């Protein structure tokens, strides 16, 4: 029992939790922006893959790390735009379009990677983001280890939570985005463009999702692997419901998730010889399903989510 307490109180443990949570924070914030505007974006899994591949490849071609981050975001925005056009002005099924975008983004990323790098035995590596070392801050006890020995992308994810919360709840634009996901005809009657707001939210949200993918290839690892996203996008969709579409809760949800994952990795080293490794690998998915079940009864979906809007129609 005291072993468990030791784990939970260690700064390293929470640093690992935040590291595992980082791609999920990007993903949940991105998904939340789309869904707040009324659009479910199941393209997320493919957008993660596209961000991971495009960001990595840009750096590999010499774009520099922040250049890679920009390219990843642009790739995300591109696939987000496809999803937005199909689901907002054309009003097509958000489920099917999202799955289509995931299949398209994933296969296009794999195809481009394989075409650029035919038959490499081990994936080429890049010089990835290194942990920050801010004199003073990084040496602080606990907080220094947890927060300031992360890479810059983790700090960016935390900043995005704050910015998204501010924009959604403290600016007219945020009010309009929330309204367009709840009652689009009221927004239209204010003279605002429902299509413009929804398309904009989906494009920006998708660009943020793609950064979660970029974190995988440019910070967590330094190479691109097939299947590396491995359901993280879908987990983000579940966490968005768990977070009841609020940026602050999204951060907490992702951190809890990261903590569980970091904890089970440590548990695995203790009892791994008795329990098959797959049981531990299943945990994130089972945990996500449990999270959905817990909040299901009181989940307060944006009221116009999944509902296409046509001008002049009430």
């Amino acid at each position: 029992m005291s072993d468990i307490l030791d784990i939970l109180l260690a700064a390293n443990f929470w640093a690992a939790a935040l590291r595992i949570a980082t791609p999920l924070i990007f993903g949940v914030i991105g998904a939340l922006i789309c869904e707040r505007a009324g659009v479910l974006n199941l393209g997320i899994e493919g957008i993660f893959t596209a961000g991971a591949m495009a960001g990595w490849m840009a750096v590999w071609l010499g774009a520099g790390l922040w250049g890679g981050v920009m390219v990843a975001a642009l790739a995300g925005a591109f696939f987000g735009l496809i999803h937005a056009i199909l689901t907002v002005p054309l009003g097509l099924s958000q489920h099917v379009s999202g799955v289509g975008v995931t299949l398209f983004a994933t296969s296009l990323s794999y195809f481009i990677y394989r075409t650029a790098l035919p038959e490499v035995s081990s994936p080429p590596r890049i010089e990835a983001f290194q942990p920050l070392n801010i004199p003073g801050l990084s040496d602080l006890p606990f907080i220094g280890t947890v927060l300031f020995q992360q890479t810059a992308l983790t700090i960016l994810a935390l900043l995005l939570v704050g910015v998204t919360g501010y924009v959604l709840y403290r600016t007219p634009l945020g009010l309009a985005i929330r309204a367009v996901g709840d009652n689009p005809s009221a927004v239209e009657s204010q003279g605002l463009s429902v299509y413009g707001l929804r398309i904009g939210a989906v494009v920006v949200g998708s660009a943020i999702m793609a950064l979660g993918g970029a974190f995988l290839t440019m910070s967590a690892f330094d190479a691109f692997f097939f299947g590396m996203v491995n359901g993280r996008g879908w987990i983000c969709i579940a966490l968005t419901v768990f977070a009841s579409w609020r940026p602050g809760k999204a951060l907490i949800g992702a951190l809890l998730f990261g903590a569980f994952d970091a904890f089970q990795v440590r548990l695995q080293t203790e009892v791994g010889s008795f329990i098959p490794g797959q049981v531990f690998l299943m945990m994130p998915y089972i945990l996500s399903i449990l999270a959905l079940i817990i909040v299901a009864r009181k989940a307060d979906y944006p009221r116009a989510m999944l509902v296409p809007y046509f001008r002049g129609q009430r």
Partner: protein
Amino acid sequence: MIRFEPREPASLGRLVLLPVIAAVAALLLAAIPMAFAGLNVFSAYGLMIKGAFGSPFAFTEMLTRATPLILTGLAAAVAFKAKLWNIGAEGQLYAGALAAVAVGTGLIGGPAFIQIPAVVLAGALAGGLVMLGPTLLKTRLGVDEVVTTLLLNFVIILFVQMMLEGPMKDPMGMGWPQSEPITDEAALPKLMARMRIHAGLIIALVAALGVYFLMKRTVWGFEIRAVGENAAAARHAGMPVTATFIRVGLLSGALAGLAGVGEVAGLKGYLTADISPGFGYTGIVVAMLAGLSPIGVIFAALFIASIFVGADSMSRATGVSNYLADLIVAMALLCVLVSGLFLRFKVRFVGVKTVQEAAE
């Protein structure tokens, strides 16, 4: 300005023509990545056609590939018709395959006419039960089935890996994580000597006809369509909406489970954790190309299978990545989605002025 005007129910000709146009559009769009990869586009298409239809062997390979796609396509078509978003056919396929192996490797003895039905039934049941969970969570607790079915795919594939490395590992498998072979009495018969095509194709075609009959001629089929069009209205009209969802979930999962049965009991003969290169997800494309029509699923599966088999063959000849096939399939889904607009609406290109006049 583009304006959409609702259209009367589409004619059969239009229903057939639009997916064909979408498929052709996807193939034409594929010329862009092909050219990007440095291929001569025309000879590449030629190689693909030859690879899928150029010889009796190629043709039977295409039919073999279409077999699981017909079943996963039906799984998606049935579920989507009721607006039950089952995106878990991949996991249900593996569950079916696992059950088929559990029953078909000597659990029960007896002649083929006992063992084969037992294996088929076990696979269907396993797939159906896997889908029952998310369906009940949806009807009882309102948990979104899209995410639960997607996440279960990962859980089930990991479970299959666990079984193949643990209790169900073949002791004679030279250490590879694979199951014991299906016994001769439990294996689905081959349809042609020296070819891989197997009786799973018959199961798939019968399933398509069965689903067609169910949807068109039975009360349950009527209820499924009614629930899909408007669940609230169906409930108001006194239809058993919850029971319909459960029936649809079981049926959809069972169909995907059958795809797994065919792959292990018909094609491979044993189970590995990589028997499906995404047949479950591709089934969604098949169903959409078919406009959710069970008979259409057969043709859509043949088209998608010929792309996969043709691209594999082209890839071997030219060295270009066969992810091209996945790319074409994904583009086909997006194209057919857009073409669906022309089914539901008349698309009018009108001047801005006319719109303003109409508004006044």
